């Protein structure tokens, strides 16, 4: 219960971006007034206080990573969580983020096209793993045959238009050729957290959720799951990019390098994410951009 509630809170408390104010007294005053109005506790302004916008699905690993980053570099990191779509809209309308960790590639590409992001700074920081999961024991088998059966009333997946995990789930469904069988049974979550809630509360018998979610909630392991093989869908690449408005470009660059370190990769993997092996190749050659290698 507690964990569902926590993930729900994260969804709902999409925090208002907080202006970092090592600025003129007027701007400082303005941001203080704003902070009070918005009810945010304003942190003292430091020169290198990174403001990072992060897709909600990456909350847990990001908290761990930023803590390590602060310990090793001294830079403070303030995280702002939300759906990639909302964060992108905020960035387009002038939100003062230094770095943006999207849940997909599309938002990053669009920001690059609009020249709101530093071109060449984008990289894959994580890859999602899709899992077919049910709270019920023995419902899901390890080859996904349950999908072709009548053993369930509702199957939950994220909206393909909004969530990369939803897109991947639809690719799996069409790869298995069971669109028609599933059509009357499908319910869609607006994002992957909501999809997980549908299954977790038992309202949907099973659903395509993120491996990181199942791993994060130990109780969920009691159910049954099928880790979808990688070749059933296109990789769920999560891209990060440095933003043009970044006030601390050096620290932002430092942080994006930190995200690509081997030790950080190991940490990210421990949260149920994958990383493409080719990212490490691209790492050695900064001018070589993985996004265009594919």
């Amino acid at each position, binding site marked *: 219960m507690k964990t569902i509630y926590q993930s729900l809170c994260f969804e709902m408390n999409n925090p208002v971006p907080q202006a970092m104010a090592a600025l003129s007294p007027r701007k400082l005053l303005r941001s203080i007034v704003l902070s009070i109005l918005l009810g945010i506790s304003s942190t003292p302004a430091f020169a290198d206080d990174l403001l990072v916008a992060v897709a909600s699905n990456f909350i847990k690993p990001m908290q761990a990573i930023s803590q390590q980053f602060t310990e090793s570099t001294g830079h403070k990191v303030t995280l702002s969580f939300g759906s990639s779509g909302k964060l992108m809209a905020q960035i387009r309308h002038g939100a003062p983020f230094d770095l943006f960790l999207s849940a997909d590639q599309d938002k990053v590409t669009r920001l690059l096209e609009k020249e709101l992001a530093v071109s060449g700074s984008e990289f894959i920081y994580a890859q999602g793993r899709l899992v077919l999961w049910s709270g019920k024991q023995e419902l899901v088998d390890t080859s996904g045959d349950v999908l072709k059966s009548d053993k369930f009333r509702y199957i939950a997946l994220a909206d393909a238009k*909004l969530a990369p995990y939803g897109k991947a789930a639809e690719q799996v469904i069409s790869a298995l050729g069971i669109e028609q069988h599933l059509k009357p049974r499908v319910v869609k979550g607006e994002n992957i957290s909501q999809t997980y809630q*549908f299954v977790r509360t038992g309202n949907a018998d099973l659903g395509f959720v993120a491996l990181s979610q199942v791993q994060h909630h130990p109780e969920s392991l009691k159910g049954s799951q099928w880790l979808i093989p990688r070749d059933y869908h296109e990789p769920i690449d999560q891209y990060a990019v440095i933003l043009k408005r970044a006030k601390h470009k050096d620290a932002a660059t430092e942080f994006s390098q930190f995200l690509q370190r081997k030790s950080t990769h190991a940490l990210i993997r421990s949260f149920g994410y994958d990383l493409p092996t080719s990212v490490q190749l691209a790492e050695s050659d900064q001018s070589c951009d993985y996004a265009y290698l594919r």
Partner: protein
Amino acid sequence: MLTSADYSALWLTFKVASLTTLILLILGTPVAWWLSNTQSRWKPLLSALIAVPLVLPPTVLGFYLLVLMGPEGALGRFTDAIGLGTLPFTFTGLVFASCIYSLPFVVQPLQNAFEAIGPRPLEVAATLRASPIDSFFSVTIPLAKPGFFTAGILGFAHTVGEFGVVLMIGGNIPDKTRLVSVQLYNHVEALEYTQAHWLAALLLGFSFLVLLVMYTVIKTPLRVQHV
């Protein structure tokens, strides 16, 4: 500009809002009547219960409805036992949740209207040998007419604008639970701003028209004169 999915979401929203308003007017009237007349010590409790959906953020309300109506929830077990199955992801479930969500918006105007009438007109009716039921229909309801209109408009408008609850328990099924607020939100999230603008404009125009018609119909004086 708009797809058939958009129109179907609009139509579905209209259906949910109308049905919810109708149900709430029917169920809300006796409740509001009782509240406006009772001296019971349970009155504050019931009033508070009815007002709670005003305070709860809709997503929170929606989440707990999802838990309550789910197969492990008390309500879910009940509906399952009587053969209805569980309510989330169904049109019925959406109407049920909307009724809870919009309840205070219907009950409170009605209660105020009933209280404003006071005991006098009913006492007069009683001296003319009208039975309580007769006087309710021929005295109270006509006098409380403005209250019914306000309740209807608020209930309808509030249900059209419903978002958090639908998002949590709807499951986004076309023609069944995909209401216009969610459809609009999805357009924005998918960065389809043009479609979002069109749908928002249409929703705004439509709602404005409905309200305009209703306010034109209620040309009856809003202040009821009595004694």
